[in-house]
């Protein structure tokens, strides 16, 4: 049997391999190629070398959106993970209705980004109207609006992952610690945290990459207003690609750099948190 599997390995992997290369490898390679060309539609490209990359770096909008995205990512990653972990801790205690709460907290994650963006736009504008301002009045409204939205959407999801992690902490160890007279704080720091490190790795990874790549919520909530000051990287790439004739290649170049950045950040993050993981 083992032998048979080995023999037919290539054949059985083939469908997935074809799907993977059609849906991922080909577009990816094509995308990198296009970033070195000038084109109107993806089928007619003319090689221009590094021109697009030079233009991308000269574009102040790109650097502004990079800075905005970085700020947003830091704030939202911290807040999402802190809140999600606290909720998870609370909902693993024996509280009445934990399952109901878990479901409710998880639900926002099931709503699509564009819809969420418009819903929150209505809510936030409804509140700000009382003070004669709107979301677009000041970039800081847009920034905090995005942070709130992102928290609302992702906390539930991260909470589920943390709950799974916390439930895996062996009861015996907790009991032993308690008998030895460890305080709740010590138990949390010395036993629970180290043991849920795998969950933290995953949650950090998901929240960092999701925050960095945020697009639809950004588009629906502010679309970059006022004056592109709340445009994040993905939105800036989209605007470059579609907004300016002759700048499709530059948009593509930005997208390639964007990919490299996201990949670098998450690889570093995975490396760091992995090292802290221990066997229970």
């Amino acid at each position, binding site marked *: 049997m083992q032998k048979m599997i080995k023999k037919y390995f290539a054949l059985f992997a*083939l469908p997935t391999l074809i799907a993977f290369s059609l849906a991922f490898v080909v577009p990816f390679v094509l995308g990198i190629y296009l970033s070195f060309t000038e084109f109107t539609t993806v089928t007619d490209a003319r090689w221009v070398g590094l021109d697009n990359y030079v233009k991308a770096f000269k574009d102040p909008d790109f650097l502004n959106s990079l800075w905005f995205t970085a700020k947003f990512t830091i704030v939202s990653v911290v807040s999402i993970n802190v809140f999600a972990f606290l909720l998870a801790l609370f909902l693993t205690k024996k509280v009445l209705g934990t399952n109901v709460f878990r479901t409710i907290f998880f639900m926002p994650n099931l709503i699509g980004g564009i819809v969420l963006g418009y819903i929150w736009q209505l809510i936030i504008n409804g509140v700000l109207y009382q003070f004669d301002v709107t979301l677009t009045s000041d970039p800081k409204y847009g920034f905090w609006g995005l942070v709130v939205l992102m928290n609302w959407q992702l906390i539930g999801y991260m909470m589920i992952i943390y709950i799974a992690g916390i439930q895996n902490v062996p009861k015996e160890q907790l009991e032993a610690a308690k008998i030895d007279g460890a305080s709740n704080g010590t138990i949390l720091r010395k036993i629970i945290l180290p043991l849920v490190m795998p969950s933290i790795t995953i949650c950090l990874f998901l929240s960092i990459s999701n925050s960095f790549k945020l697009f639809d919520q950004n588009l629906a909530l*502010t679309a970059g207003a*006022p*004056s592109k000051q709340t445009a994040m990287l993905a939105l800036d790439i989209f605007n470059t690609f579609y*907004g300016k*004739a002759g*700048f499709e290649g530059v948009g593509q170049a930005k997208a390639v750099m964007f990919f490299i950045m996201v990949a670098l950040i998450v690889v570093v993050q995975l490396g760091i948190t992995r090292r802290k993981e221990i066997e229970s």
Partner: protein
Amino acid sequence: MKKLNRVLSLLLMVSLVFIAACGNNGNKDGGSTSSGGAGSIYFLNFKPEIATIYEQIAKDYEAETGVKVKVVTAAAGGYETKLKSEMAKSEAPTIFQINGPIGYNAWKDYTLDLKDTKLYSYLSDPSLAVTEGEGVFGIPYVVEGYGIIYNNAIMEKYFALPNKATGVSSMEEVNNFDTLKAVTEDMQANAEALGIKGVFASTSLGAGEQWRWQTHLANIPLFYEFNDMEGYDSTVLAGLEADEIQFTYGNNFKNIFDLYINNSTVKPTLLGSKSVADSMAEFALGQAAMVQNGNWAWNQIADVGGNVVKEEDIKFLPIYTGVSGEETQGLAIGTENYLAINSKVSAEKQQASIAFLEWLFSSEKGKAYVTNELGFIAPFNTFTDNEKPADPLAAQVMEWMNKDTTAVAWTFAAFPSEDFKNDFGDALLEYAQGSKTWDDVKAVVIESWKNEKAK
């Protein structure tokens, strides 16, 4: 055994690929038989407000000729995006739209020369077409006009007010900015007595909703600026040549823009959340007396539930900005809608597409659609005088064309890029919200024009 396995798996692989290829072919064949042979037409429509009518036309055309017309409509403000992705497909649009010389520049590799078509010969003024050298690449299919639309019923109510502060007693007298301003401000002061929330419907500055200001209103000062330049046949040509602008008439823009935002249904700081549909609804519901828009907006006014504006009360006023001699200024009349045929699809498809357009603009049935349903003032000599649209706004545009006034040409065909318009619009939003001064806006406009031209 080993060998057999290898052969087997190889066979399987080949058959898999074969099946996939067949599937593809099958799809293609199936697709084109259902779309009436090789000559099927794909029309990428620019105007969402009349999308359903185009679908009806497509159905009728298929019934008459057996040629299938596929109509796809891009979302408002998303035409370039849609066009770019559709053009890359194997079933690319055969008929698409460019917005003038700038649009032609972006799509010149894709536009077919239409010099020898009947469609071009139908044009009552061939100089309207987008040309380069000997070639004709874009055919305008509609002439439109915009200005300030007002509700005459409310104006009459104002003129009858016992305590009005101005001596104006009919709209005939409003023929310059100063009078308009005096009337507007007095009306705003008496808003309650007139039963309105504000004189002007909200100045929509939400994302994607700014074109009435960064394109149409911006046209007025730049028209005058380019008009002052000597040695050009038209303001568009002058604009295309200009690497930099002075925004000489910027303060005139400020005049009218201030009037719009300060005498409106909402506070200036709230404009960032308003859409064009919002302001058309305000006008239709009688909450505002005036709104800046063009004759294409008729459907938007007529279709609002609870519409209280009567057809005979809807009139046009030119956009007065305080330029000297503006008493003889007319509406802004022109076009930014040019049809182009995709030069990269098969010759049969190109011919079929041209035939469809010729049918639409010259056959009885097609013309009836254009006049009555689409409401186009078509610039073709195939239309007789009684084949003009009957909706009040289009009728008003034609009335103004025949008046003894000078129409403002659509100079924005020369605006360097979408980005220029968006920079302008963003600056206007910040100005309305108070975070930019007028001088900042001016600087943005001048700077952005220069940068976009340099690209």
